[in-house]
């Protein structure tokens, strides 16, 4: 195989031109002959018993072709636990929950019919906050939780606690009892974040030749296929999912969404059906980054050794478990990451509430746990009187250190990354003068994240014109991985130009199983599967060339569109000539490959209820920012922002810079002004762009970026995912900087001007989380006993 370094280039993306010309047809831009328009009837109450649904009058209305509800979709799906029916079944669990779906000739007709469906409800008590849900005698969101099918064993569950994952390593009680330690305790709370992907969730479904064809805006075609099959009670092979260009995902589209509704309607109406969420529906039922509450306590020596740490994280999953069940796993690697720890115990609990379900969002769980961990670290530094930068340089994870679940980290990465950031800092003057009379603050934070590896498949067809077609179930959601990284990887392996690699859009009838596009896994998992496919293609190509050129395959090399005899330039044949000959003599050349995470070892028994006990590819980040806080208004201006990111190998540095700038800005929105509040009746207050404030061009600064290469990675050519992690420690950096500027403890996000002003004026009461007991054991169902002890 050729040198990895020859794959590195700022290859432009094939899809840019059509996107710039307005020619790209996203799902929302598509239609089919005879297509119907659909809408959902959604609940407008957070908790109720369904007494009666009567659609008989609605069915008679003009243009109506099909109406479906819970009786038409008996299954339940979920992650870890199958708790989620397609339609509200028996009871309403959140405001916005679908009750029925209508397809009609026009959208207006569908909406009119939905409004005419009679729904008789009997109100039930609701739990809106996690404190409500955990109160003694709280009403249960799922009274039948015991009866649900468990899809992954191991998580503790009961009542409104949908899932509990715990980590215990070493003797934490002994660590906290030591006489030479300072004990620092902190609590934090964060709200939800909406992805605001510009293309809403959208689908067109049809039922043809006894099978469903679902064309949808998703990151996970195979999850859509499998969940739809489960909900509709049909074999998964009876569902074909195809995915056009996706207009933004960020994790929102990492779950099955509108697809089963459209599929059911298409089968019932025997016509293609289009279903698209309005912006208001996207705001009210978005699978947001979850709100969370965190209590963390550390025992630290005056030399700065963290000898004991314990934490409890409450994650609001809303009415159904969804992604949060899985994400309880991540606390072990985020709150348990960054620093060398002695004994540690962590509990992550996903809590049911009568609110819209939450979901995955870029560096899910990590964003707020990193905020909490880094603010807590600054509080530790204040308590023991150590400079925060010096503390971090001393305490970050290094070669041979143990993660919270006992995984052994390889190589010193975070330490040298902090040194790199120090170089950036000293190379440029501080922006402090720009603050003028405002309060100035600076902070440097570290973060630990991972690449969500897992099964991927790839097939490559080598065409007789010297091009290659790459068939996978990957989706281009905007990050460029499918348009840039994969063609670069394949072309490098086969000696082609990247523009001669055609990447087929996802189609579950053509590409093999894939976990989906998210978790920074596209370049790594699909790239590795593609590399494996290249090995087969290369072998077949060289066999044919060997016969043509009468040279052993081992003496041949693929480069610049040619098969050459090693050391003799111009000696061989073009790949076109060899591919043509192959087609005639042995048949067209193709190759297939696959990949899955190899699994890194954790200490036996440390982790309970985890989907991943150890992380295959850790990814680290160091962020630094300077802020100015206006003491009159509480407004925070970001003066500078710098990122040192661990990327393994940067295949397309310019594309990674684009991901970092974009990810940091999404993080700035989360840190400073994207606020979601939930009213007393369980409805999200923010209904659109007017009330939900995303960053605008004038809010942002150019991010100074340094890519840290060379850290170990099992990714193809030494790569790591680069698109997910840029958002990881933004809120941490901003919160620490604002805290430094104001001299006030920042315990909550976002740092809106009223919030910051209240901090400055001393009007903000210290956060209390009485529903998280100060005694760690009181917060868990069962304490696991770790067999191994920390060294």
């Amino acid at each position, binding site marked *: 195989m050729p040198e990895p370094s020859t794959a590195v280039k700022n290859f432009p993306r094939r899809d840019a031109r059509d996107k710039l010309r307005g020619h790209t047809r996203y799902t929302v831009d598509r239609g089919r002959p005879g297509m119907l328009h659909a809408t959902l009837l959604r609940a407008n109450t957070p908790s109720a018993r369904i007494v009666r649904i009567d659609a008989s009058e609605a069915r008679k209305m003009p243009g109506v072709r099909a109406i479906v509800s819970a009786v038409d979709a008996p299954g339940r799906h979920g992650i870890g636990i199958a708790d989620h029916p397609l339609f509200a079944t028996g009871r309403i669990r959140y405001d916005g929950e679908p009750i029925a779906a209508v397809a009609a000739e026009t959208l207006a007709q569908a909406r009119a019919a939905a409004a005419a469906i009679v729904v008789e409800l009997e109100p039930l008590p609701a739990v809106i906050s996690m404190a409500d849900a955990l109160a003694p005698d709280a009403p249960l969101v799922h009274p039948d939780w015991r009866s649900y099918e468990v899809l992954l064993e191991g998580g503790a569950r009961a009542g409104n606690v949908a899932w509990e994952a715990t980590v215990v390593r070493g003797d934490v009680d002994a660590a906290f009892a030591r006489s030479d330690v300072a004990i620092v305790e902190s609590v934090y709370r964060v709200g939800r974040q909406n992805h605001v992907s510009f293309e809403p969730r959208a689908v067109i479904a049809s039922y043809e030749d006894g099978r469903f064809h679902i064309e949808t805006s998703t990151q996970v075609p195979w999850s859509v296929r499998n969940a739809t099959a489960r909900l509709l009670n049909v074999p998964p092979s009876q569902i074909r999912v195809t995915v056009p260009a996706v207009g*933004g995902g960020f994790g929102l589209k990492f779950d099955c969404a509108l697809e089963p509704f459209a599929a059911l309607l298409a089968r019932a109406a025997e016509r293609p059906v289009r279903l698209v969420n309005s912006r208001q529906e996207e705001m009210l039922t978005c699978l947001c980054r979850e709100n969370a509450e965190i209590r963390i306590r550390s025992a630290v020596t005056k030399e700065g050794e963290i000898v004991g740490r314990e934490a409890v994280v409450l994650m609001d999953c809303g009415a159904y478990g969804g992604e949060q069940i899985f994400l309880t796993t991540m606390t072990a690697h985020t709150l348990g990451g960054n620093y060398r720890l002695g004994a540690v115990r962590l509990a992550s609990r996903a809590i049911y509430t009568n609110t819209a379900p939450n979901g995955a969002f870029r560096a899910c769980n990590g964003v707020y746990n990193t905020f909490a961990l880094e603010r807590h670290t600054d509080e530790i530094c204040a308590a023991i009187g150590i400079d925060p930068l010096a503390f971090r340089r001393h305490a970050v994870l290094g070669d041979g250190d143990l993660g919270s679940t006992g995984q052994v980290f390889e190589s010193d990465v975070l330490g040298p990354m902090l040194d790199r950031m120090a170089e950036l800092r000293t190379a440029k003057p501080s922006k402090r003068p720009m603050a003028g009379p405002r309060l100035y603050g600076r902070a440097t934070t570290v973060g630990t994240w991972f690449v969500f590896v897992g099964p991927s498949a790839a097939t490559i067809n080598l065409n007789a014109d010297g091009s290659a077609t790459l068939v996978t179930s990957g989706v281009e959601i905007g990050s460029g991985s499918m348009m840039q990284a994969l063609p670069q990887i394949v072309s490098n392996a086969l000696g082609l130009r990247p523009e001669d690699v055609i990447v087929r859009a996802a189609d579950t009838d053509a590409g093999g199983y894939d976990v989906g596009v998210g978790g920074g896994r596209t370049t790594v998992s699909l790239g590795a599967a593609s590399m494996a496919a290249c090995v087969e293609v290369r072998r077949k190509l060289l066999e044919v060339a060997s016969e043509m050129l009468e040279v052993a395959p081992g003496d041949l090399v693929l480069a610049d569109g040619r098969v050459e005899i090693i050391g003799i330039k111009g000696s061989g044949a073009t790949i076109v000539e060899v591919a043509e000959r192959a087609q005639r003599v042995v048949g067209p050349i193709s190759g297939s490959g696959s990949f899955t995470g190899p699994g890194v070892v954790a200490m036996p028994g440390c982790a309970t209820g985890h989907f991943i006990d150890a992380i295959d590819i850790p990814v680290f980040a160091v962020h630094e920012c300077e802020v100015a806080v206006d003491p009159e208004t509480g407004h925070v201006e970001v003066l500078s922002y710098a990122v040192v990111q661990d990327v393994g190998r940067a295949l397309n540095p310019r594309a990674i810079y684009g991901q970092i700038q974009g990810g940091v800005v999404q993080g700035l929105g989360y840190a400073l002004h994207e606020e979601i509040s939930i009213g007393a009746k369980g409805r999200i207050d923010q209904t659109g762009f007017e009330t939900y404030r995303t960053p*605008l061009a004038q809010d*942002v600064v150019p991010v100074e970026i340094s890519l840290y290469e060379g850290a170990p990675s099992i990714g193809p050519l030494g790569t790591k995912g680069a698109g997910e992690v840029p958002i990881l420690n933004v809120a941490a950096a901003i919160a620490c900087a604002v805290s430094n500027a104001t001299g006030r403890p920042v315990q909550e996000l976002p740092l809106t001007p009223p919030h910051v002003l209240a901090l400055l004026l001393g009007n903000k009461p210290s956060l209390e989380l009485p529903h998280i007991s100060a005694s760690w054991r009181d917060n868990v169902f069962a304490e696991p006993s770790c067999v191994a002890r920390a060294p």
Partner: protein
Amino acid sequence: MRLSLEINGEDRFSLSDPLTPLVDVLRDEFFLTGAKVVCREGFCGACTVLLDGQPAVSCLVPVGLAAGCKITTVESLARDGVLSPLQRVMEEYDAVQCGMCFPGMLMTLTGFLARARNPSREDIKEALVGNVCRCTGYERIVDAALAAAQATVVEG
């Protein structure tokens, strides 16, 4: 009632109700799906088109009020398959990610650059106050627009 519209230099006719949002007529009747419906409230800018050279959010313009205006959509920026200077520089700078906001961004900037004389980085950011982007973090779009503006100054 038949509405006469001038879209991208061509005379077109619509039978839509005059109160129909222009963006729906462009997309549903003429299949000009470049303009995107993202918020329908005039906040995001993804449906921006030019009306007599001025950027306007087509979700808030009733089609009846667009009759008599020269309506210019993103589909018209490239002539005979050749990208406009602004489109070209966006491609060269690798500015595009998901791409949903770009039709609106391009129309706002096309209208702005046609009038602005030697704009600064801050001027460009101010011009983009009504165009939200969720992917890029803006700066590369601004870099590209600045380069386009400077090229225009040199060429002009």
